[in-house]
């Protein structure tokens, strides 16, 4: 099994390439860009929203609950005569901390979700893509797990679609 790596200097070529690969039924490929491009996301994920939002929601709900619980439970745990006549659990006073905790945990969970779904932190993800240019001014593409025949086919297709350079990595050449 081998992978085909292609470097594109132009966005439209990359888009064509993605399109081509999908038409050709190759679904196992990754695309890199030095900047977020919505075209790419559109093509690949068809506007399906990222699951990170579920982390966010959970975090927010959790945080809010914890925040309010912290205030009210600690005050109930030691029922002092409460300053300035406020009752033990005084909602208005606790709203602020509840809100802050909501935001805090919402963000922390979102961060976790992001890292989890991006598979970060990662040491060597997509070794083919360890290419300084990719964080600079070119787009990259890796089509994975191809047998020798389809690999070269893919390579030619990509060359045809305007890749600056293409190469086949992994696997063995006859």
């Amino acid at each position, binding site marked *: 099994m081998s992978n085909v790596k292609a470097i594109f200097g132009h966005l439209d070529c990359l888009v064509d390439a993605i399109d081509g690969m999908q038409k050709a039924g190759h679904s196992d490929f990754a695309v890199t860009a030095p900047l977020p491009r919505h075209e790419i996301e559109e093509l690949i994920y068809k506007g399906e929203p990222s699951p990170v939002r579920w982390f966010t929601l959970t975090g927010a709900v959790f945080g809010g609950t914890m925040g309010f619980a912290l205030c009210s439970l600690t005050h109930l745990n030691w029922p*002092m*005569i*409460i*300053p*300035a*006549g*406020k*009752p033990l659990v*005084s909602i208005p006073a606790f709203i602020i901390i509840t809100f802050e905790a909501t935001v805090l945990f919402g963000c922390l969970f979102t961060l976790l979700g992001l890292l989890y779904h991006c598979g970060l932190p990662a040491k060597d993800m997509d070794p083919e893509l360890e290419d300084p240019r990719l964080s600079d001014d070119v787009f990259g593409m890796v089509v994975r797990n191809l047998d020798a025949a389809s690999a070269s086919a893919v390579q030619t297709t990509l060359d045809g679609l305007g890749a600056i350079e293409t190469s086949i990595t992994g696997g063995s050449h006859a």
Partner: protein
Amino acid sequence: MAELNRRDFLKVLGISGTASACSIDPVTPIENVLPYVVTPDQIIPGIATWFATQCNGCEAGCGVMAKNREGRIINIQGNPEHPTNKGSICAKGVSDLQASYSPDRFDGPMVGGKAASWDDALEATASAVKAAQVAGKKIVWLGRKRTGATAAMTDEIIGAMGGTVLRWEPLGTEALRAAAKAVFGIDEAPHYALDQAHTVVSFGADFLNSWGNPSHARGFAEARDPSLCGFVTQFWTIEGRLSNTGVNCDVHLSPVPGTEAGLALATAKLLADKKGYTGRAASLIAGIDAEALIGAAGVRMERIVELVDRLAHNDSVVMPSGTTTIHEEAVNIATLILNEVAGNIGNSVVFGPTANDTGINTFAEVAAVLGDAANIGVLFLDELDIAYTMPASIGRAALGQIGQVVAFSSEPTGSIGAQSIVLPSGTGLESWGDNEAISGRHTLQQPSMKPLKDIRCSSDSLLGLAGLLGLGAATDETPGLPADFATYLQGWWNDNVFEKTDAPDFAKFWRNAVQTGGHFFDVTPTGAAVQMTRLPDAGAPADGTTLALFPHPFLYDGRHANRTWAQEVPEPVSGLVWGTWAELSPATVSNLGLEEGDNVTLTTDAGSIDVGFFASPAVRDDVVAVVMGNGHEGAGRYADLTGANPVNLLSEMQYAGASVQVTRAGKNETLSSQIGNIDQDDRPITYLVKAKDVGTGSGPGSIVHLHHPPIDERLTQAGLLDMYPEPEHPTYRFALAIDNNRCNGCGACEAACYAENNIATVGPEQARRGRHMGWIRLSRYWEGSGEEPDVRFQPTMCQQCSHAPCEGVCPVLATYHNLDGLNAMIYNRCVGTRYCANNCPYSARRFNYHSYDWPEPFHMMLNPDVLTRTMGVMEKCTFCVQRIREVKDTYRDVGQTVPDEALLTLPACASACPAEAITFGNAKDPNSTVSKIFQDERAYAMLSELNTKPGVRYLARISHSEVEDGQGGGH
């Protein structure tokens, strides 16, 4: 700091171990020491033992209770049994506690500036006496007022030495006595009974504070209390400035200095004419031209007519002159005549139960002896600092020539030189003594703790001396002198007190006397008949700017200058601490172009001093009043710290009258005012009610015209006023009621608070940077001007609010509300965010910006029941929670709630107050005294519109003024 204190406290405990074995000085056997309340006389750690003894703060001779904890006296309160002060105590008396713990005390006898043993010191003295006798030089005893056995023994021994005994008080009643002698032929200062007077007229005597004794403050307060006497006395003061007493006046007449006597006589004349007076004084005032005299005094005729009208129709008292009066004797003669005409002699002005000044010399007599100083071989100084209290031309000059000065004193004074022999006499807490400062009131002083230093009371030293000189040895006819003064004292009391009683057995009598603090005869007051045949010269009016010295309410004549409490409790009228200042009229201030913090140079023909100033709205433009008490040399670290001695401006011993030049000088480095603003800036902080409204009200505060919309009860009922209900107070809601109408601004509460709560004194530098730690701020608002000054005092401490702004904002719950309604402070929990203090509308909280230290042995005086606070911690009044705890525990043991009478004067401030203006109690109990006062028509809560539900209520001051909106403030 905290650890240090704990260690020191243990040290104290260790000492008290021995102390309990012999908790008094070695000279006196232990079995005579009898506590007043708790019977066992050995010390139970944690339980205070109270000793009845006498106060040495001034010559009034009040009785006090010394609180002994673990062998150390930690507090002094008034002795309720004593007829003079009846349980109250003034700031001077409280501060006198510090005398025993002064870091500057002599460790033992000194000869020629070097420490010596008692034997050597007495030997040296004896030889000095012998030398003087041989050389035919005089032996002189010069000391403060002493009476009773103490005086008797001194007279006996000094007499035996062939010496002369002189006693003199810098603030004595000399002029008044002279006047009484001239008018009535009685060499005695009369007693003034204020409690029944509808009208009190003062010619300058600071009778509520530094003049006379606490009975005046109490009487005046009672006379101003409508609930007691059904009327409110009206107070007229006639002086060139307003003293600490004068600021309480309803009317202030400010005559040309030197014309007071004439004014008084003119008033007497008009009064006599109005009443058709035909008494013995009639002839004296017959020829007086009232019009002219009143004109000369520069006082409005209508006012005098008004005054005469009041005097004619009501009981009255005319008080004598003060230190700031020129021609004191003439003025006093005039006041006595005015009293005579007003019919007060024998009623409100009486002889008999009054200051016992037998054996007190006039200054002329003292000066005569000192003038011949070269012929004085030995001068025994009995706690009198002649270098400070006398003009240099007399005091210092004499000291230079005297052969040998022998000083009985526990602390250094300016009069004690390197060559002096010092016989440390200890303080009143360490030795036996007695007084009869007021005729018939024999007060005992018993040693109530082990002396901190190697001391002997002056009487014992004298006995030792007598022994060495071979005096008073037993002969056939005389039993001779006893071995120690304690025995002499008993003997004297046996002959002079016990004999006059019908007590069967001396032992019982003595025991009882020691327990109650003395034995008090009721001397029947008598009137007097005018003997005077022709009026002396009334004295000429002063020309130019005249100097007038007045005593500091706490430092007094300067004897308390080394007491940090007396220095740091703000002088009530000016709010100034740490220094000497001159009262200047606003006009003078602007003429000189003075700014706050400036100094002025005062120059007389006797000398010149630099002092700070206080722009007093009441002082005349041609009068410069200077406070006494500060500016010592060699009288201790605190006494020497600040100020200048105004007595150096005097060429003869006459506090008022010298002409003085005022010029601008540099900046004052020590003096600072602790009162922010002269008036209440049109804010409704304190209120007045009109005398005519008194008694017309129904319900709490009904006659106080609050300057904010009164809180509508319906709102409260509908729950719209309060977001939250008031917290539950199951048994107690401790509360304080302060009668602003009784309060005369004497500052006793502040001093007592310092003593009880281990409040740190911060010193001049920190004080001027606004780090004053006093828990009670005696706010002074100067609302009026001219003839109606309307000065109001309002003691402001933590108000213990039920809806306390401070509590809600503390992030660490270092302050919270307890079940008794107090805002408790947890000092250990405090981080010092100071948010609570920012949010306190009463500005009642104090912050420890540094760790303030108590130089040894001050730390032994700390109240072990109260935590000392360290750097970075907030503190405030808690109604003396430690005392509340104590009394609650006592009654919990018998399963009772604390009864009202046990609470009335529980906090230090309430127990001290000479005017009995402060009442403490449980507001939860509807029948308690405070609850009743809370319902008073004059009751109001400070800043009540903030609805903090404070636990303090003030009773509005009653004004006789007809000026509308006398309340001041409001829009």
